[in-house]
């Protein structure tokens, strides 16, 4: 049994040295100890979670109510939970990066270069693939079916599979903390550095498979959202009556469908180089790294629009709701969104202006890049004009939206600078670039996702979030962002490169210290978010809004109880206008029982998605460590599950009409018993989710 070839067969390239605890034991410096600490947190966290759930006897509940559910609302919430966990990890990594750069000025700092490189790689990979994508997917999953008047997504089972594949990828990223190490090649993973001859360890393989799993999940989401919006709109909900969030979700879905394939090709061909000795991107055998760069950014540019468009959708909803006013320029917003979506496929080269193309090629892409600023500007003006002459309420969501409008535009200006090839030659790969893209991602994407979380939380859980902590959190996010990133503009313009583990110019010190302080503010912002959640759960009975419309908002999702029934709508509504629910409230037609209740067919729970996810994770783990029997076994399991599922016929269950009616009438009784609150009182305990409607002189029909 000590036969080396049998051990290699069983364990692949795994060895004791793969464990960070063993590495820290052998070489106890701060860098290794931090690594071991992170690994320990993963292991203890996993065991701790299992122990806690077992102690609470919650396995059956979690399994039947959440993990195996095909309900878009449950899957949406689970996506957001996943995003929250990964946000925590990646933000801590950011603090570590900032700390290293602030202390390593003509000094070695506390993390070694190899470790530092892993930090910025995991930070970027997690934030994009396992924080932003799941977060926005979760919001779209939750909200879109309800906004269009549907009961679920077009493909509920595919929804579950996509979610569990994403979890598998996230799991792989977490496992890499405890077994082996991660890639040091940045979130973009450029070869030839990530080829076997320069990065022979498991790192790039972890990266490849985690990203591939995530991108497969995202592809399924794109197909699902597109078909849902295309085919399952309620009667009367024409395209030009869709809420803006649905329009941005549709454009996001289109981007996902067409932008994920280049990433899949790039990562799988890199895998072909690493596993089968091929020469796509190697520095010998005729390989060409520029093919990778080109493919990656064919994906990468639409990707940044994938993460920002849902946020734009949230801003449209939030600004309209909290300005107590109809969205200004509905059609122009739609055209701008579609223009952004199409143009996003024409600009990818601006990510590699410096790689040797002729000036004409660079200029063409530079001009295209600047063009994208125009529809974005149209949207900003539309939002400003929405607020104009409205009654603006400064809820935390609205505060984030206002901060977005100012901060994002500033970042957009720096984008125009970078879009000019000669200027980009000086700024590329400096901290100026890092500041620019964080300026787009944090005020653009993150504020939007957080605003959406706070906006729809009462709908999902039936009680409002604590507003005070929301303001504190928003304040920390906003000030933290400015302090953490504006110094980086100065540093980048002064010549400091990105991704540097050590700094050699003492003049950079004050800026780096300000940036470090900003990073701690951002960490505080995250912590206050969790405090807000804790306080809100503690006060959930006082802040309950069961009737379901705490903000006097406009979309169909607000016309059902909070939390909504599993089937969303007792009867599918007939939609006569844009903002139909808003006008129905004003015409006195809201909170009416249905004429006729019917049986409702819903998808049955299934373990298939979970099994596919777990098997995919094991398959990829086996691939990372060259444990071939594991890869083959779990690969078969994935295929077998897919095939067996296709044989299943009993995949739906029926909710009897009587049950639907009973639930509906119970909610309607609550609605009629509830005291309607005017907007000034919406943040008080008096708000039960029913808005006070003042008679309108000219009410539109519902």
């Amino acid at each position, binding site marked *: 049994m000590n036969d080396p070839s049998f051990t290699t067969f069983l364990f692949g390239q795994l060895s004791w040295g793969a464990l960070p605890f063993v590495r820290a034991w052998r070489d106890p410096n701060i860098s290794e100890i931090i690594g071991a600490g992170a690994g320990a947190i993963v292991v203890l966290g996993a065991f701790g979670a299992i122990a806690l759930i077992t102690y609470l006897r919650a396995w059956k509940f979690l399994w039947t109510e959440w993990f195996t559910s095909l309900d878009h609302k449950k899957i949406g919430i689970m996506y957001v939970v996943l995003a929250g966990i990964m946000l925590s990890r990646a933000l801590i990594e950011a603090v570590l990066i900032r700390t290293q750069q602030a202390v390593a000025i003509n000094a070695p700092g506390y993390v070694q270069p190899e470790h530092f490189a892993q930090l910025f790689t995991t930070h970027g990979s997690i934030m994009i693939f396992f924080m932003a994508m799941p977060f926005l997917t979760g919001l779209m999953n939750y909200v879109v079916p309800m906004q269009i008047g549907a009961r679920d997504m*077009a*493909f509920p089972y595919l929804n579950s599979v996509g979610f569990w594949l994403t979890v598998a990828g996230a799991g792989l990223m977490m496992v890499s903390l405890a077994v082996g190490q991660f890639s040091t090649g940045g979130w973009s993973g450029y070869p030839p550095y990530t080829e076997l001859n320069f990065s022979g360890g498991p790192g790039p393989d972890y990266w490849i498979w985690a990203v591939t799993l995530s991108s497969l999940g995202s*592809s399924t989401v*794109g*197909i*699902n959202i*597109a*078909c*849902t919006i*295309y*085919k*399952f*709109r309620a*009667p*009367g*909900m*024409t395209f030009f009556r869709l809420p803006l969030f649905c329009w941005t979700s549709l454009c996001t879905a289109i981007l996902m*469908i*067409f932008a*994920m*394939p*280049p990433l*899949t*090709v790039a990562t799988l*061909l890199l895998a*072909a*180089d690493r596993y*089968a*000795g*091929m*020469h*796509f991107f*190697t520095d*010998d*055998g*005729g*390989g*060409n790294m520029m*093919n990778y760069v080109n*493919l990656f950014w*064919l994906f990468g540019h639409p990707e940044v629009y994938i993460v920002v468009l849902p946020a734009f959708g949230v801003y449209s909803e939030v600004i309209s709701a909290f300005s107590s006013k109809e969205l200004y320029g509905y059609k122009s917003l739609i055209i701008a969104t579609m223009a952004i979506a199409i143009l996003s496929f024409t600009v990818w080269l601006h990510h590699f202006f410096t790689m040797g193309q002729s000036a004409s090629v660079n200029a063409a892409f530079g001009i295209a890049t600047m063009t994208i600023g125009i529809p974005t500007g149209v949207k900003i003006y539309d939002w400003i004009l929405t607020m104009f002459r409205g009654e603006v309420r400064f809820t935390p969501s609205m505060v984030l939206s206002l901060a977005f409008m100012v901060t994002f535009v500033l970042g957009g200006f720096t984008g125009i600078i970078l879009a000019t090839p000669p200027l980009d030659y000086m700024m590329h790969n400096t901290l100026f670039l890092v500041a620019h893209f964080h300026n787009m991602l944090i005020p653009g994407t993150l504020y939007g996702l957080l605003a959406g979380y706070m906006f729809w939380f009462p709908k999902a859980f039936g009680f409002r979030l604590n507003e005070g902590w929301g303001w504190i959190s928003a304040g920390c996010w906003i000030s933290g962002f400015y302090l953490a990133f504006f110094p980086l503009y100065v540093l980048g313009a002064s010549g400091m490169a990105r991704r540097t583990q050590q700094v050699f110019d003492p003049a950079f010190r004050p800026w780096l210290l300000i940036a470090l302080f900003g990073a701690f503010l951002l960490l505080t912002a995250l912590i206050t978010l969790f405090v807000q959640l804790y306080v809100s759960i503690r006060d959930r009975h006082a802040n309950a809004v069961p009737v379901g419309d705490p903000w006097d908002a406009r979309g169909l999702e607000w016309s059902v109880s909070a939390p909504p029934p599993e089937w969303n709508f007792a009867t599918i509504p*007939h939609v006569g206008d844009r903002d139909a629910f808003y006008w129905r409230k004003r015409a006195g037609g809201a909170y009416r029982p249905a004429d006729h209740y019917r049986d409702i067919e819903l998808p049955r729970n299934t373990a298939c998605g979970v099994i596919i996810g777990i098997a995919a994770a094991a398959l990829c783990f086996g691939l990372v460590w060259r444990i071939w029997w594991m890869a083959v076994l779990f690969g078969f399991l994935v295929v077998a599950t897919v*095939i067996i599922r*296709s*044989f299943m*016929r009993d995949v739906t269950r029926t909710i009897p009409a009587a049950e639907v009616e009973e639930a509906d009438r119970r909610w309607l009784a609550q609605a009629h018993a509830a005291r309607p609150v005017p907007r000034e009182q919406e943040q008080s305990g008096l708000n039960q989710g029913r808005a006070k409607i003042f008679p309108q002189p000219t009410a539109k029909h519902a």
Partner: protein
Amino acid sequence: MTATTVGPALLHAGLNLDHASREEAAQVQSDVFGFWVFLMSDAVVFALLFALFGTSLEATAGGPDLAGVVKLGPAFIETMLLLASSFSFGMGSVMLKRGAKPRLMKHFRPAVLWLALTWVLGVAFLGMEVNDFATMAREGATPDRSFFLSAFSVLVGTHGMHVLIGIIWMPVLLLQLAAGGLDRPLKVNMIRLSLFWHFLDIVWIAIFSVVYLQGALR
């Protein structure tokens, strides 16, 4: 039925789908359209592999180039096999609509025979392709030799892998036909497989034009 229908009626001519309700119609149309969307993302994958192939033609690293690797004879036979299989699948689809009593297998005998023929042609195609790659390996034209050979092998090989998926998918569906008759989920699955199979033949048109015929021209 209200007058305000959303979206056009998507009646796929492949199989009769007698719709029981508006919701079911929407679900079936969405099921088929969703698969079209997936095929389009797959088309992007193939398109990019073609683009990579285009940039690889001169990166032969001293090894075999396109002219040296392409053999028109087998390529022609493979093309004929795949085209014939598209024809036989089409015939099978039409025959599937004949089943008046969807649970009786004997009503489906012509359909099953046409589909079995499709399967045999597909397996023959794959067999020839495997043989082609084995010949190339014997001649030293392995994918790890150069970027060009990597690009060629992955382009043609990815198409082959898709054919293999179809080869596995087909008997699974025939098994379901025998087990449960031609119910609605199976009809939808059949439509998806037919889209998949025809799509593969369309990709092959690009392959034999851009890879094999271009190679023979050099």
